[in-house]
């Protein structure tokens, strides 16, 4: 009963100044629309840029670094064991880049339930032969299925089918830049020379385009088997294990643990690509602050309109109080006016925000460096809508709070005697 009464009074006051109310609501709508659009767009862009590198980067990479042995003979002699020995010009011994005992490591990774999956890899330095000229290159020997499952190989193989790599023996997927230099078409056979001087013919089954031109000029993909053959190594030869975790935030801890456990080098994605995270978080911060500023400006609009309404309706407030409405009731009337502007404007804003971001999602966006992106990226995260909705209500409540308190404190005697 009481709520209904207060609602009916609020609605009447609202409708009495419907043009101003509408302007206030449009202010909220506009700011929420921009807030949603800005965040969706910015976050879509962030995801895309992060995806450019981070999706293809293992969360933890296990490899063998070629470096001098830490245990030098002098440290092991009885006499000098206690000393701190300085030795200059130590050279690494002729070590293999292979991860020792890799099948055991992989077995134990399989059992680790923090691990989403892993893909073994061989990095082989080669030369692509173009007539008399040799171009430096690197062939990544990969497990095609796992590489695709964990690191989305198929999304950047732009021509040809990535699965052919597995099905056609001695095949290669060339970087787009390398292929252009070699003028190799799909189906052609190219020659590569290994570091050991062997020349091997490989059949081109596709091109890949990573979005980073320097990489595309150098790298290419082949299967692990082909690469092992290329290098003349046994079937157990693997130089890298790329691990993808269920929770990327655990990567630094896990990397440290693996380094101890498996006696290999382990680097986590945060260390390897720290600049990306910084960029993303700053972009997000900027979009939030712009969105919040818009909302606060809209809040001031509501504050102004309510203040004016209170001055205009001073008599009405006085008479309501004289006939038995308490300060609390008057407060509730004006707060509900503010909130209904906020809720109405906010809901419209959420709808328009969704609409505007869907429109942006349709705008073509073609760039040579991003082969998989055809339109502007938008992230439709419900989180933005929830934040936007809550924010619209909170700001309008704040904007309504002070005018409402002022209205509730109006002394009817002063108004009525003043006439």
């Amino acid at each position, binding site marked *: *009963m009481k709520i*209904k009464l207060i609602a009916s009074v609020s609605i009447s006051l609202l409708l009495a100044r419907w043009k101003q109310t509408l302007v206030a609501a449009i202010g909220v709508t506009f700011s929420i629309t921009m807030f949603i659009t800005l965040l969706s767009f910015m976050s879509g862009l962030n995801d895309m840029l992060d995806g450019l590198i981070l999706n293809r980067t293992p969360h933890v990479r296990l490899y063998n670094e070629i470096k001098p042995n830490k245990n030098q003979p002098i440290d092991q002699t009885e006499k000098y064991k206690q000393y701190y020995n300085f030795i200059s010009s130590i050279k690494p011994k002729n070590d293999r880049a292979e991860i020792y005992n890799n099948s055991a490591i992989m077995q134990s990774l399989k059992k680790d339930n923090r691990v989403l999956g892993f893909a073994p890899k061989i990095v082989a330095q080669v030369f692509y032969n173009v007539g008399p000229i040799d171009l430096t290159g690197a062939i990544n020997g990969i497990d095609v299925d796992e590489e695709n499952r964990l690191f989305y190989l198929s999304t950047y193989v732009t021509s040809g089918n990535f699965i052919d790599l597995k099905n056609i023996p001695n095949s290669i997927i060339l970087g787009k830049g390398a292929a252009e230099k070699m003028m190799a078409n799909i189906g052609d056979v190219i020659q590569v020379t290994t570091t050991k001087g062997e020349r091997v013919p490989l059949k081109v089954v596709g091109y890949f385009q990573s979005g980073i031109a320097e990489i595309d000029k150098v790298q290419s993909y082949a299967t692990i088997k082909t690469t092992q053959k290329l290098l003349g190594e046994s079937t157990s030869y693997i130089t890298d294990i790329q691990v993808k975790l269920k929770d990327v935030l655990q990567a630094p801890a896990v990397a440290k643990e693996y380094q101890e456990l498996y006696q290999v080098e382990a680097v986590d994605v945060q260390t390897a690509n720290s600049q990306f995270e910084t960029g993303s978080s700053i972009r997000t911060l900027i979009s939030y602050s712009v969105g919040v500023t818009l909302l606060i400006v809209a809040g001031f609009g509501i504050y102004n309109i309510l203040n004016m309404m209170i001055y205009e309706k001073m008599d*009405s407030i006085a008479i309501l109080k004289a*006939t*038995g409405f*308490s300060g609390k*009731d008057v407060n509730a009337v004006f707060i509900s006016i503010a909130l209904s502007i906020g809720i109405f404007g906010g809901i419209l804003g959420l709808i328009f925000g969704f609409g505007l971001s869907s429109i942006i999602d349709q705008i073509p966006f073609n760039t040579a460096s991003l082969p998989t992106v055809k339109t502007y990226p938008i992230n439709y995260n419900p989180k933005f809508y929830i934040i936007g909705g809550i924010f619209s209500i909170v700001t309008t409540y704040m904007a309504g709070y002070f005018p409402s308190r002022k209205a509730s404190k109006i002394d009817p005697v002063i108004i*009525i005697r003043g*006439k």
Partner: protein
Amino acid sequence: MSNKILEAKNICKYFHDPTTVQVLNNVSFSIDKAEFVSVIGKSGCGKSTLLYILSTMDTDYQGDLIIDGQLMRNKKEADLAKIRNEKIGFVFQFHYLLNEFSVLRNVMLPGLKFGKYSEQEVEHRAIEKLKILGIENEGLKMPNQLSGGQKQRVAIARALINDPLIIMGDEPTGNLDKKNSEIVFQIFKELATVYHQSLLIVTHDNEFATRTNRIIEMEDGRIIKM
């Protein structure tokens, strides 16, 4: 004793701005049920100030105010609002109708706030009150479509909606012409005699006052005759 619906004991009131002036000096009187009382006095003698204290809207005074056996001192703002709503009907010099609402709705508002009756019942009662005042046909109009006299009658209907203990009027005929003043007076008279409604009307219209049951005359913040 049981007939006293309103009692004022030694009420004093000061205005502090710009200098401290005593406006009411030991005002004491009481009103019985069904009495039609008028308060007269020169302008500035404190009669309106007294009325606002009696109506509970002004709480800055010394002395005791007892309405319906309850002491008004130290009551919370919300409680006082409830007492105004349920026990006091107020008619001002100016009608103070809300232009956003229809006449009927204006009359209903204090009743809806009271919450004793359902909305349908309040509406029914409002129509009854408008009938008493002879303006039942104006119920669906907006206040600004009515004449001054009609507006004041709507204001009286609004004061009556919760069957108050007492109706207080602050120069209710002050803004009206002779003819409408007479109509309003006749309504008050009828309320007092037919419906046994207590009334306390502040006026400077001596002709109006002489026709009431009892006159309280004030001068310089004191009651000089009652």
